[in-house]
């Protein structure tokens, strides 16, 4: 028998042989490895004591400008309009969008920066609420990636590979660690409901080659918070119960006849679906939240589908033990008209992000909830297109950008790493650079998982989230 078959041996096949004859209830208990069912995941228990039990990933898609948010570079204001010195650019590749420009004029942020909190971290005036919680944050100014276009870059952040076909991070965790709530999915996805140039797609929360039960379940703003959750019109909960009871009898008969344990598993899944029909509306019903909570998250949090609403919903999901909660907020792709675009994006996200930190903290959840904020790459320090007195744009920039982490064992109140004077390269990439694989390795580390040991064999090869690279950045860990 090949190792592949021992490693990935179908749980169900095994259960059928090992626990044959156990009743449906016991079976359901045993079944709970991942996906929507509660359970321990394939690892059984983490490799070492976890600092974080769950993750809320606030993915800002499109590539937020680090220069308008966390990376303060006054020289760019002083040198405004001057060409980017070759000594800074060092011949690195640009996208085809600005790469053919005859002039690459540097441009500083039009927004004021101040130092905040005890940590004295620099934050731009566009993020006043985030500035208010800066002592909780571990700001990484020296993130870098390899991709320069959206699709490969965001795929890289979500799955650890630029090419399609690999499992997403949430799927890895659902597979490895399972869910802490038997009635909710282990991996929930919340996309802000807004039109944007950078579309979001199911691949980003897909399972790749992992079994599809581990895929992210998208919660939607509409009538069905989970696809197909509601009974058809005219079918009450009692009627559904009657259908399921009849279904149970049919299937029990079939099981008695065939001896196939898969039937018991299907019965358990139907019951789980029935429970989800209660648990999902319960978690997505914000009506019981007190007024002050809505005040904390801002007015948007009353409107389903907004970022602030999803931040509040993320807290509720975290409270109920959902393992990986991923928000996706598009619109940060400011190739042109950045000054008229980015303030709106900051307004949409600033209060919700900060409120989430405050809310988790006061409920004692921040200690074991890792919150991550950031996009798939940063933006250039020079203007894409024409630089005018009050307008400019910034192109994609993978060489350095800023993200932050909070809670879950990440260091509090620090800014990690420095970019060069022009904000174009990482000053000391060897010691301070944080590659996407490093971020993933560090996140897994905080979750008690050795990133080299959460593996899945596919097509004869062992795959992991961090591919063949990645190191835990100890300086980010409290």
């Amino acid at each position, binding site marked *: 028998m*090949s190792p592949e078959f021992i490693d990935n041996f179908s749980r169900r096949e095994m259960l059928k042989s090992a626990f044959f004859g156990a009743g449906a209830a016991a079976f359901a208990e045993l079944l709970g490895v991942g996906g929507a069912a509660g359970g321990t995941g394939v690892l059984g228990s983490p490799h070492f004591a976890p600092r974080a039990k769950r993750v809320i990933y606030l993915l800002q898609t499109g590539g937020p400008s680090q220069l308008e948010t966390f990376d303060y570079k006054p020289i760019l204001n002083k040198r405004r309009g001057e060409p980017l010195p070759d000594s800074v650019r060092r011949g690195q590749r640009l996208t*085809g969008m600005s790469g053919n420009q005859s002039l690459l004029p540097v441009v500083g942020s039009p927004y004021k920066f101040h130092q905040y909190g005890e940590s004295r971290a620099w934050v731009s005036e566009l993020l006043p609420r985030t500035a208010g919680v800066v002592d909780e944050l571990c700001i990484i100014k020296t993130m870098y990636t390899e991709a320069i276009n959206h699709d490969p870059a965001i795929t890289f952040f979500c799955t650890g590979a630029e090419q399609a076909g690999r499992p997403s991070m949430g799927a890895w965790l659902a597979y490895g660690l399972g869910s802490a709530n038997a009635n909710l999915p282990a991996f929930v996805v919340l996309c802000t409901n807004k039109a944007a140039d950078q579309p979001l797609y199911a691949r980003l929360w897909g399972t790749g080659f992992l079994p*599809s039960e581990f895929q992210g379940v998208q919660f939607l703003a509409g009538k069905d918070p989970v*696809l197909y959750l509601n009974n058809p019109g005219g079918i009450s909960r009692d009627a559904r119960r009657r*259908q399921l009871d009849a279904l149970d009898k049919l299937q029990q008969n079939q099981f008695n006849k065939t001896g196939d344990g898969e039937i018991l598993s299907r019965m358990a899944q139907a019951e789980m*679906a029935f429970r989800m029909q209660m648990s999902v509306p319960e978690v997505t019903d914000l009506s019981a939240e007190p007024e002050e909570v809505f005040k904390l998250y801002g007015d948007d949090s009353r409107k389903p589908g907004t970022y602030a609403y999803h931040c509040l919903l993320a807290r509720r999901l975290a409270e109920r033990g959902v393992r990986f909660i991923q928000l996706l907020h598009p619109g940060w792709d400011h190739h042109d008209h950045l000054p008229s675009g980015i303030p709106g994006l900051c307004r949409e996200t600033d209060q919700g992000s900060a409120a989430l930190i405050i809310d988790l903290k006061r409920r004692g959840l921040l200690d074991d909830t890792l919150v991550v904020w950031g996009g798939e790459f940063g933006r250039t320090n020079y203007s894409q297109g*024409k630089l005018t007195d009050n307008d400019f744009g910034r192109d994609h920039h993978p060489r350095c950008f800023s993200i932050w982490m909070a809670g879950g064992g990440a260091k509090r109140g620090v800014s990690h790493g420095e970019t060069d004077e022009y904000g174009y390269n990482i000053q000391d990439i060897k010691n301070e650079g944080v590659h996407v694989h490093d971020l993933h390795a560090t996140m897994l580390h905080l979750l008690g998982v050795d990133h080299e040991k959460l593996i899945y064999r596919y097509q*004869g090869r062992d795959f992991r989230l961090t591919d063949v690279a990645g190191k835990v950045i100890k300086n980010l860990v409290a």
Partner: protein
Amino acid sequence: MRAPAANLLFVAVFTAAAGFMSREKPGDAPVDFQRDVRPLLADRCFSCHGPDEAARKENLRLDLRESATALKKHGVAVEPGKPEESLMIEKIYETDAAQAMPPPDSGRKPLSPAEKEILRKWIAQGAKYEAFWAFVAPKKPAVPPVKRADWPKGEIDRFVLSSMEREGFSPSPPADRATLARRVAFDLTGLPLDTAELDRYLSDANADAYEKLVDRLLASSAYGERMAADWLDLARYADTYGYQADAHRDVWPYRNWVIRQFNENLPYDDFMTWQIAGDLLPHAKFDQVLGTAFQRMHRQTNEGGSTEEEFRVEYVSDRVHTFGTTFLGLTIECARCHDHKFDPLTQQDYYNLCSFFGNIDESGLYSYFTNATPTPVMTMETPEQKEAIERAQSDVESAIQALRIARIEAEVQLLREPAQPPHQPREIVGLEGMYHFDKVAEGKLQNEVSKDKPGIMNDGPAPVPGVAGKRNGALQLSGDNNAQFPGVGEWNYTDPFSLSLWIETPDRKERAVVLKRSRAWTDAGSQGYQILIEKGKLSFALVHFWPGDAICIETEREIPVGEWTHAAVSNDGSGAASGLKIYLNGKVAPTRVVRDCLTKSITGGDPGALTLGERFRDMGFKNGKVADLAVIGREITRLEALEIYQMNAPATPAAEPDPELVREFVMNSSKDVEAAKISLRDARRKLAAARDAVVEMMCMKEMREPRPAYVLTRGRYDQPDLKRPAAARTPAALPPMDPAFPKNRLGLARWLTDATNPLAARVAVNRLWAVCFGRGIVATTENLGIQGAPPSNRELLDWLAVTFVQSGWDIKAMLRRMVTSAAYCQASDAPPEIRERDPENRLLARAPARRLSSEMMRDQMLAVSGLLVNKIGGASVKPYQPPGLWSIGWGGEYQTDAGEGRHRRSLYTYWRRTVPPPNMILFDSTKRDVCVARRQNTNTPLQSLVLMNDPQFVEGAVALGRRAAAGGGADDAEKLKLLFRTVCGRAPEPAESSALAELLGAERAEFNKNTAGAGEFLQSGGVADSAPAERAESAAFASVALTILSSDAAVTLR
């Protein structure tokens, strides 16, 4: 508290596995290298001591006997016959973690005591190596003897029974006929038997009733659809390009092709050849070329700013991976960045394979601004279109003939009355615009021809002195600014036209846009015409889609730097590169043809105004100067080109015009000639319109010169290793390609279908086996390599492979052989002890039970409810999908089809890669991003929600319930029996009947009380409402139907 359960689970696996193994080799039987040893070495050792040279430690290869048994620095790893002297044995039994193998920190699982013993024994028995079985061509093994001679129906059964008997198993009894009929109907057609067909079979008492049923199923057109559903996973078929914009593309003719070939039972060797190299077959027919669309189904991007070459390389790689998985059953992609760690595939092999698949004239980006089909393409004329094109073509021929005659007449006229010396300066006929850049008023450039169409300056090109000695000014461009000329030069390729201007470039330009009428370039695939400086040379191009649908010429010599040069270009309207000319300083410049393959219009995608100096996201004419632009709506002659040049040339000495030029001019400018040219232009416009109307399909078309190919260092597109060129060669570890085969895709296909190829037939029959038995003889149907699962019955696989080839690669015959075997016809039910002893059912002592695939699940519901629209082929359709899913992406909201599109078979459901249909993904459809040979098989709560709540499934249940309520049957019991049998293909058992009767009673009572609720339920989907009096009854039956459709008897093939 859950941990113990999980641990128990693993104990169970190992117990099962170990138990299985121990039975496989009792006593001191020789260790089987293929089965027992190589898998261990591969898994624990090869990553450091295997084929990958870069990762190799201690220069030791355990995959090769010579290396394993050679004396190295620390000793001999494998000393045949002497385990105690073998370093390997010392290392695997080592207790010091720092010394032990595999190293604890390697991520490799430690060897168990039993595994260590296998290795020890193997060395003790002489450390025999055998070539990996799958890399050696199969020989037809002898059919083994069996004890129970009455069971086998054919050779398959003797192989199966022999291995069962070896393991002490015996076959299960035959499945009951109704169960078997349902199983084989789904396996061969993806649909249930309808009740009439089932009854026909059940009432046929002849001995060959089952074989006849099989023949009917194989002959039905639903067979091709069922087989296509699997093939489309391998072909990564989708109706959109993927990546972020994920735009629509029309590729469904390829799906039609697949269905058609399966139904016509195209021999599998041809099926492979046509898809790999149909375009290269002598006198390739339409269907042979269309097969090559298989190679183009991969994802493609048009994201702004992407590097063209990066993605072109990605596409070629995708073709190689797909080729490897589909036809060789090898994970070739593992050798992209380094030598394969397990299989003997080197990085050189990988790029050699790439060079088979990279020789098409394609772009790494599809068009952002137009809907041009990425080249190369084939045209999909309808008969009417074909006729219209032929008619237009013949009109063009006639017009050409008429023009020729007009010219001869003009020449005759010339001989009669010699031409008057042309007076100078002659008026330029057909002038649409003439701009001298000294005349700038209010930022506008005056047009000497029509005052109301001035040029516009954007971001201020600087006025500078013009050509020395002349009055006219000039403009200096920055590379980012431009001058635009609206309302002139709005031509298609059919329109004869000319352009003239003076240029001065300050330096040798690698690339600079001098003049263009098109929207954007590198990342946008725009249409239009252009004059560029490329690598110092002047080029002139008309483009529908670059590079595969365009004409382009460039000067043989570079143009002068720092010196005013007069440039003129002309197009004759023929659409051929031979109709383009470049003149430099009044004389025809020698040129080279860069592309000559224009077939479609160049005016799509909003090309905007004729522009000097810059283009969106392209390299502008930085610091270049331009002067005196003339925009001429006819093809100028050599004489005119000379005169236009002389008009503004500095101090041109007046020369006597060359009589030859005069003759040419006169022949081309008589009144009759001009009229004939207009007629020709109009005929060509009609032909262009007829051609533009034809749908195109991506396909393969080999370039004349193969593209130079190299090994890419670490797989990076921009790091070709120039010292390691790649050539069209097959992997070195496999049998070589016959030198007589051509060194291209056709040769590759010949190699693949050659009897000496060890993989192609095995991979194919293994997948066909999985169609019938739920899993392959090699369970990893995508990987027959060293890390693939070992075959459960290698002799059977080889026998099938050789038989398949000998049958002329006859797919239907092979499937027939499989589904008529006794092994297939067994019952799938089995007592616990049998399941425990063989949980994976490797021995087939029972038939496999499988959940329906995503397609079958939905198609069954459509079929049994009577909603199915049975129409073969055609464009994709959009059935029900929850609202709002598409709006997170581009491409607008999903519009559910009205009418039949809601009820076609699921393989026709529109596949949008970034937002695939959720009710199919939830049942383990592949994502169609990359080639996948084997689907997951999961069981989740979300599946339960689909079956009971998805409007598509509820609609089916309602239709079914309504028919049951109104249909035959004297009483409830009769009606329920019919309903159950319609869905599940068998009569309900007493326990089932009573559960259904109880539910029906409760539902009827409930809906009688709540008729509004009944009405609401019945309105799910688009089925017409029942009469009010019948609502409660229909709803009650519909509720029962929904329950039956969700039950195991419906969702599982038993």
